[in-house]
């Protein structure tokens, strides 16, 4: 599966996802500016992305923990998600995300 990721400068790149990995891990390892300070424990909100296009509705809904942790994110929008909580799977091939401002 592929992830279409846009960085904070509006530069788009396509990165190869891996089933079962979190989108945060893929973006971080691809060198996108994802701090992921807590390492994927849904405990810091520094992997905040906007899920664009119609991909948001294709994702499983946010857990309470993710909703709560988004309170610590900046510039939260209705399409805000924590990328450590999105798991790569074939159905998400082509998902578009934009790294949120820091």
């Amino acid at each position, binding site marked *: 599966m592929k992830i279409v990721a846009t960085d904070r400068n509006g530069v788009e790149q396509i990165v190869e996802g891996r089933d079962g990995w979190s989108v945060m891990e893929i973006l971080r390892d691809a060198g996108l500016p994802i701090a992921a300070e807590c390492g994927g*424990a849904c*405990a810091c909100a520094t992997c905040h992305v906007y899920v664009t296009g119609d991909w948001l509705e294709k994702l499983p809904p946010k857990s309470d923990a993710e*909703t709560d942790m988004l*309170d610590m994110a900046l510039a939260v929008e209705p399409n805000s998600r924590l990328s450590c909580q999105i798991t790569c799977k074939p159905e998400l091939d082509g998902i578009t995300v934009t790294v949120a401002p820091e």
Partner: protein
Amino acid sequence: MSTIETDVAIIGAGPIGLFAVFELGLLDLKAHLVDILDRPGGQCTELYPEKPIYDIPGLPIVTGQELTEKLLEQIKPFNPAFHFNQMASGLEKLPDGRWKLTTDADEEIVAPVVVIAAGGGSFVPKRPPIAGIDAYEGKSVHYAVRKMEAFRGKNILIAGGGDSALDWTINLAPIANKLTLVHHRDGFRAAQHSVNQMRELAAHGKINFEIASVKALHGADGQLSAVTLSNAEKKEWEHACDTFIPFFGLTMKLGPIAEFGLNLTENLIAVDTAKFQSTTPGIFAIGDINTYPGKLKLILSGFHEAALMAQEAFHICKPNEKLRFQYTTSSSNLQKKLGVA
């Protein structure tokens, strides 16, 4: 200004800084620790106090908080000195070869060895990505409430949905001229009793609560006069206020360490893998802040790094003494230091 002389100054009181106290203590080296947070534990207590950690050798499951408490118990015999709520702000080599570490609270620690165990850097408040916010910081935009009196009679806007946002909404409401809490949703991460209290204040007109986000700041010379709020329903509108206090938690920034003249690679300190010393003799880096071929950012790696660092720290601090390698299981000398013999 106070000056302390010791063997080792440690920057960062996270798990690795704490364990370094143990390894140094076994070699009779005294340590002082500086941390910007108000308590020990670093990321373990700040980011994930309740999250279980499964890869600490010998502890099949332990939370960040428990690990910190166990480390504090382990280092208790060595009586480390903590300097909390302070950022290590300057590092200078003295003519006698020792280092002088300065903090932003004007403390000075003079030691032959400095150990940087600063993890991802200093925890500092998250700054909302609003254009021009830096011009207002310190004057009308604040990230913490240090003296409540400074906020008396103000027209305050607080942003956020965590405990700090709710607690300060409740505490500042009686002394503010007007207080508005703005949050992006009608739900809160904060403790339920604080949320109930805030809703009570709002119901009685003591505060205003807006479901919105702050889009822009307006004012002059660092003095705020209004902000632009926005939500899906009302679009954008101006809200008059003279004080803005955003509470979005903390994030890690390398901070002044970047200015210490060390050899940095992508904000990490390059070290050798025998001593975990930086390219500047006497300055060591252990834990998440360092880098070397094969580095893994794991707590257990930091523990190993602390042990090897301590060996070299001994040679620097006690150049005329011979280091005797001993085991805690068999050495009555070590057991005496630990208070068990």
